[in-house]
């Protein structure tokens, strides 16, 4: 039978991640295999076609579309400068005062002169875009003209949801325990440029202060839906994030509401307090799931000992696995899987579903939950 379970989020103390960094269209690669790179280093760049503007020359000169070439002063492919004449009408009675001149709105290139619509299309000079390494590491392989794969020995932690893009900074714990709420007094001016580690929640007001202070990122167990709306200025409909225009990246490790950060995650972050990390809030919960990431770079011996983590996703969930319940009425509770009955079981909703029995870590109580509502804690 197909495995019915949700693969858990990865919380791995030592691993080697590979980050594929590629340009959207071919360009210039700036690194070689084996080269050491820093997270902020540009590894490839390219130029992408820029905005285009249409000019209705036919109307401006009061001519027909078919006549347009007779009045153009530039050809397709010609470079133009801002305010430079590109087309002009014939002077009336030889008096230039009555002549209409059409000028280029900006520096660019004449892309098309249409004798059907009478329009001229001018494109701005190409825009340069570059991609950075995102992690400290070594170039493992390259795709000529497109990008490279960077290998990075690190501690790797996935969040469940995030907003804001890629950033880098030093980890700085502001909560002493995973159930603590981040308060306004916890955010200090000297935290500018740092990535803060919180406990169970941060409110909009406190997060705003972090943004104002110049904090690079906040990692916290829970965040309320109402506060998310306040940060974004709109109700988020579909969990595709990462391009928000906010100065501080937010990574939520457990879910919406006030939720204590899983102890394992919190302890691992605390252990790395003061170290340099790369984080990304990019989340995409559709086919091709993408979760926010925290990558804490290794160096020296630690880096040499790190080995790629073998995921157990293929093997399915097994008795004895550590699990997290991800739906009410036990949302957020951790426990150990003790029984996987094969038959369908009727639950409170009257649905007949596959279930599992989990012994809760905090109380020792054994609870029955649908398999779909449990995720394995990846170790």
């Amino acid at each position: 039978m197909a495995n019915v379970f949700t693969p858990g989020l990865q919380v791995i103390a030592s691993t080697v991640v590979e980050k594929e960094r590629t340009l959207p269209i071919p360009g210039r690669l700036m690194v070689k295999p084996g080269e050491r790179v820093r997270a902020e280093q540009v590894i490839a760049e390219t130029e992408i076609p820029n905005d285009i503007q249409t000019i209705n020359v036919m109307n401006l000169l009061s001519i027909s579309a078919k006549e347009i070439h007779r009045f153009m002063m530039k050809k397709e492919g010609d470079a133009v400068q801002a305010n430079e004449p590109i087309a002009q009408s014939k002077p009336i009675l030889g008096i230039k005062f009555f002549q209409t001149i059409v000028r280029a709105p900006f520096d660019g290139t004449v892309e098309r002169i249409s004798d059907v619509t009478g329009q001229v299309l001018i494109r701005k000079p190409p825009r340069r875009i570059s991609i950075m390494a995102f992690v400290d590491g070594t170039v493992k392989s390259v795709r000529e003209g497109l990008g490279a794969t960077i290998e990075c020995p690190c501690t790797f932690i996935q969040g469940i949801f995030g907003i804001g893009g890629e950033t880098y900074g030093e980890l700085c714990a502001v909560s002493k325990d995973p159930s603590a709420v981040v308060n306004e007094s916890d955010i200090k001016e000297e935290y500018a440029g740092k990535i803060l580690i919180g406990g169970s929640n941060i409110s909009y007001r406190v997060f705003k202060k972090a943004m104002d202070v110049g904090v690079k990122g906040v990692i916290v167990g829970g965040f309320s839906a109402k506060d998310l709306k306040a940060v974004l200025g709109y109700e988020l409909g579909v969990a595709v994030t990462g391009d928000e225009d906010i100065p501080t990246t937010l990574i939520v490790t457990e879910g919406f509401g006030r939720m204590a950060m899983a102890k394992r995650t919190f302890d691992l972050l605390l252990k790395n307090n003061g170290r340099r990390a790369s984080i990304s809030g990019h989340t995409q919960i559709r086919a091709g799931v993408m979760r926010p990431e925290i990558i804490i770079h290794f160096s020296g011996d630690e880096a040499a000992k790190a080995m790629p983590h073998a995921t157990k996703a293929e093997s399915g969930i097994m008795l004895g696995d550590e699990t997290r319940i991800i739906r009410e009425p036990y949302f957020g509770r951790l426990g150990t899987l003790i029984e996987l009955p094969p038959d369908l079981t009727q639950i409170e909703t009257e649905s007949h579903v596959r279930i599992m029995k989990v012994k809760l870590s905090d109380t020792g109580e054994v609870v029955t939950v649908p398999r779909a509502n449990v995720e394995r804690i990846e170790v």
Partner: protein
Amino acid sequence: MEEKELNVIIATDCGSTTTKAILIEKNEKGEYRQTFRGEAPTTVEEPYNDVTRGVLNSLQEVEELSGRKILDGDKIIHPARGKVGVDIYISTSSAGGGLQMLVAGAVKAMTAESAQRAALGAGAIVMDVLASNDGRLPHQKIARIRSLRPDMILLSGGTDGGTVTHVVELAEFIAAADPRPRLGHTYTLPVIYAGNTAAQENIRKVLGKKTTLYVTDNIRPTLERENLFPARQKIQDLFMEHVMAQAPGYGKLKEWVEVSIMPTPGAVGYLIHAVAEEEHINVMGVDIGGATTDIFSDFDGIFNRTVSANLGMSYSISNVLAEAGLDNVLRWVPFDMDEDDLANRIKNKMIRPTTIPHTKNELIIEQALAREALRLAFEQHKLLAVGLKGVQRIRSVSDTFTQTASGETLVDMMKLNLFIGSGGILSHAPRRSQAMMMMIDSFQPLGFTRLAVDSIFMMPHLGVLASVNKAAAKEVFEKDCLIPLGTCVAPKGAAKPGAPCLHVKIHIHSGDKAKPPVTESIPVGEIRLYPMTLEEKAEVEVTPTRRFDVGAGFGRTVKKVVQGGRVGLVVDTRGRPLTFPDNVAQRRKMICGWYQSFKVYD
């Protein structure tokens, strides 16, 4: 296509998360029946990157359950001999995001709308509709075309011999944007031109080199006529040739199937249209999924489909809340609920979309959200399933008073005969009465309407089967796919709650035995259930008061024989549209009463 003699059929639907296989066999009585079903996760993404892995896994499950040997290694055994092999393998697909299209037309309410209908009818998700008069500036249109990465573009514009400049201008925008296809770096984007024939040469000049251009018949040759079939056919062909050929593993899958892989919604639409045509009835269908909700309608032979791309029960559940608003969701919830808590729960479902309700209250909340998702998707459907706009009509005096115009919606709930629900929240509702009530609350049928649900989501499989063997598809559809829920009788009209609404006589027959007839008057504001089994029939006579109409006119009696179902006969006098008291306590009391009458939650 000539109908093929088939005894054993295996069909798959490669969905975005699950690949579902069904086995259909001809039994000793000569009937086609769906016998076994298997499913496995879809494998179009890392680490597998090959859709056929998921197909093989789902077929293996069918093998294990049925005892029929279907696979020889990675090959499907043909033809069937005894308990080995199958006669045909067919498939549909919506994996990897389905078919995503951009459509463009000269005038928003005319050719652009026709292009949208053509794309939707072929099973596409329409990412945007561009038109010369859509209010966007040229550079905004170009930026939009460039930012989207569609699988293909449908360009239309102008009636034959009509405007050339507008459609050429749109072609110039497309050329300037130089859009890149979503899948595959090595092929150029397919563009279908289905506009003014007089502009074809100009379009070739503008787009011929930058895109892979196909020219088909104009979808709007005259204002009075819409000709969607050639463009739809071309879209489906290109879906196979270009889009699917770029998706991982589809090259192999294409060689396994005996007829073209159809986009999943295209196959469902084909089936719904076939049912409407066969039985000469008006049919509607809805498929509510995790990310999207599709609605299909076939009224008087005119088929329409819409897809509400961000209304769904898991990935898009938070968008349902955003679009419907908290109050509209809470109006269906009969218990006290903290608004912040509800918003957090919905967002938690969004980020962990595969979870299911464990408690009764969580089920009620999800079904409340489903009602709103269905209602919003239906609103969108009514806006697009309209008569042709821009048609010149001669108005009579009565038209002037009633303000009828071209572009009226074709959806007339009073004329609807059969409504089919599909998708997890409807097909897998713990009680069938819950599915029936969600459909009634959201779509608010009028007159006499039969309701049914798709038992295990096999309409896509049967849609593609219908293109090979219509009889087999029809037989399985009736016997195994459709689960009749019953009939809803609802009058049109309005009056205060408690006012007289209608008088009903119900005489239920079970084979030769007749149950004692029920005769009662039902006031406004109620919903009553008369349980009937699948085998039972009832003679129903409804006499509305003069303010209400059940199909024959205000105050006129209607007599009909209705078939039973898993739920029964429902008489709904709550009025249309449904209204709710502002007072929270009164509202809760009212909906508790509805739920109790319908026995949905106890």
